[in-house]
């Protein structure tokens, strides 16, 4: 090929000639972000307006904090708020340490082939939708014909109402969350473990460190930055809520423990057409989430960790 233009100075004309194509490529993605991510943010104003189906977002009259005080005055909202926090805290308490332990366990597993197999199997549930998982759970935990209750009956125990009683539902919800995500969440820790220098282990070996001591003094400190980063992100989500998971697993018998903010917003907003009220609750949730994220991050940074920004 002939070199047509060996050295290009960055003059204005040549800059445009060189880059107009790049901007053209970006046009569609940028349009996407503007239309589907930024424009809806302007609709948040309806949280402060008297909005209904017959008005546009802009013509609706302002009502100030009306919807916020209305939400704060209903037991339903507090029920959803309490459930969101409870379920998220339980998820954090159970689901946060579990992948760390599993990653260490997998790392200690001596048989390489078997390790691969274990990983392949435990990652799989991550790819099942919550609808499928709730389908699996409804069958597995059915009070009468489910595998678990049949097994319990074999050993002479009374059936447990895993999904259709409030007492059984919460542990089942948390347990299924663990089942779905624990394997997947080890990936990031396993990657971090690979990054730990083998010299550290060798040195510990020379010093006569036992297996447990090596985990405690080498592996865990090596995982610390990862743990802190993920902990910050989890704390930031303490008031956040997924939708599919609680929605798929709830039923009319357990609304007192299963109704979380996301399902509350859906119920009140889309089903009962109280758009403004539901937006106010949604906005409240987002603001608290950001607040928590900032606090968690600043605590982490103050204690000498890296933080997420």
């Amino acid at each position, binding site marked *: 090929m002939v070199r047509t233009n060996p050295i290009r100075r960055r003059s204005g004309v040549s800059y445009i000639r060189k880059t107009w*194509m790049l901007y053209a490529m970006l046009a569609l993605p940028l349009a996407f972000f503007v239309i589907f991510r930024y424009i809806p943010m302007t609709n948040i104003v309806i949280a402060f307006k008297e909005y209904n189906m017959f008005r546009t977002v802009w013509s609706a009259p302002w009502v100030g904090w009306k919807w916020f005080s209305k939400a704060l005055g209903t037991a339903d909202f507090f029920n959803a708020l309490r459930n969101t926090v409870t379920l998220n805290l339980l998820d954090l308490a159970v689901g946060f340490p579990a992948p760390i332990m599993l990653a260490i366990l997998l790392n200690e597993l001596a048989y390489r082939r078997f390790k691969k197999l274990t990983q392949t199997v435990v990652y799989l549930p991550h*790819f099942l939708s919550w609808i*499928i998982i709730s389908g699996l759970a409804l069958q597995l935990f059915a009070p009468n014909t489910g*595998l678990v209750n049949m097994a319990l009956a074999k050993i002479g125990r009374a059936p447990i109402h895993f999904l259709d009683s409030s007492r059984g539902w919460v542990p089942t919800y948390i347990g299924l969350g663990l089942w779905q995500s624990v394997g997947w969440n080890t990936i*990031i820790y396993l990657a971090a473990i690979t990054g730990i220098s083998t010299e550290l282990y060798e040195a510990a070996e020379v010093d006569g460190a036992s297996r447990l001591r090596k985990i405690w003094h080498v592996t865990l400190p090596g995982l610390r930055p990862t743990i802190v980063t993920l902990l910050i992100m989890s704390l930031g989500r303490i008031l956040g809520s997924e939708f599919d998971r609680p929605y798929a697993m709830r039923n009319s018998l357990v609304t007192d423990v299963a109704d979380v903010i996301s399902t509350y*917003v859906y119920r009140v907003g889309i089903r009962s057409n109280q758009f403004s009220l539901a937006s106010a609750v949604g906005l409240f949730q987002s603001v608290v989430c950001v607040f928590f994220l900032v606090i968690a991050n600043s605590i982490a940074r103050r204690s000498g960790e890296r933080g997420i920004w």
Partner: protein
Amino acid sequence: MTGSNITDTDRKSDSPEPFASRVVKSRHTKRVDFIIACVCLLLIIVCLTPMLNIFARSLSSSQALINRRVFLWPVDFTWESYQFVFKDASFSRSMIWTAFLTVVCTIVSMIMTVLCAYPLTYGNLKGRQVINTAIILTMYFSAGTIPNYILMRDLKLLNNPLVLILPGCLSVFNMIVLRSFFYSIPESLRESAELDGANPLVILVRIFLPLSTSVLATLALFYAVGRWNGFSDALLYMTTPKYAPIQLKLYQIINNLSAIETAQNEGIAAAPMASEGLKAASVMFATLPILLVYPWLQKYFIAGVTIGAVKG
């Protein structure tokens, strides 16, 4: 630790046992290894039991199910439930529709992701920092359910099949994964192509895309799985039963709801109950495509996740 580290360095030596090591293991170490393996085996069982159970139930007769005889293996083997699922025209139509939707979504998403990631790898592109920040911000701040719903209504997208394609057609996370991979392609390749007079599009098509086929495959699979598993967008925006994707359909079946009831309320109504076996078969159908792509998926996803984690 001892075992795995030393085997890692010894991988190339032809030891008969994969975990053979230079260090002679004490009996204690071996016992601990064995216990760890048992724990892992238990985990495998816990992971697979629900799936085996539903598989067994989908292939058992309804009599065997009611008589509580089905554990992990089909009893009174029968294809009955699967035949019932096939007879339900709305279910098979939903499967086909979702498969079609998944293909279209994946293509659209891949185009969008490449178009977004590639220009952002040009360090001297003016406005790149601003665009970058604006994109990353959408990972942390979103408008919320209701404002999004109002947008879809204003855009006349409610009950329009496009609503299942467009709003989710670009994932920032996937875009970051691809961009990180593009960064790892040596700058000198691009520079020499530029000297040869190639424009950015030619460089993308001739150099960048062919070099990143594995990442592109991973992302395509992520998008495809995401669309196949997608539920809430359909629940919110799609009340036309004709366009109900498989997850919505499955939700109705396992909760004994008819299509109209899901749209109107969420209580458990007294619709004619689908038999347990039929529910099991429906779940199997919805899971099958995921199980089919899983071998390919797991070949690549680890790299994808760790790249995203480092840069995100």
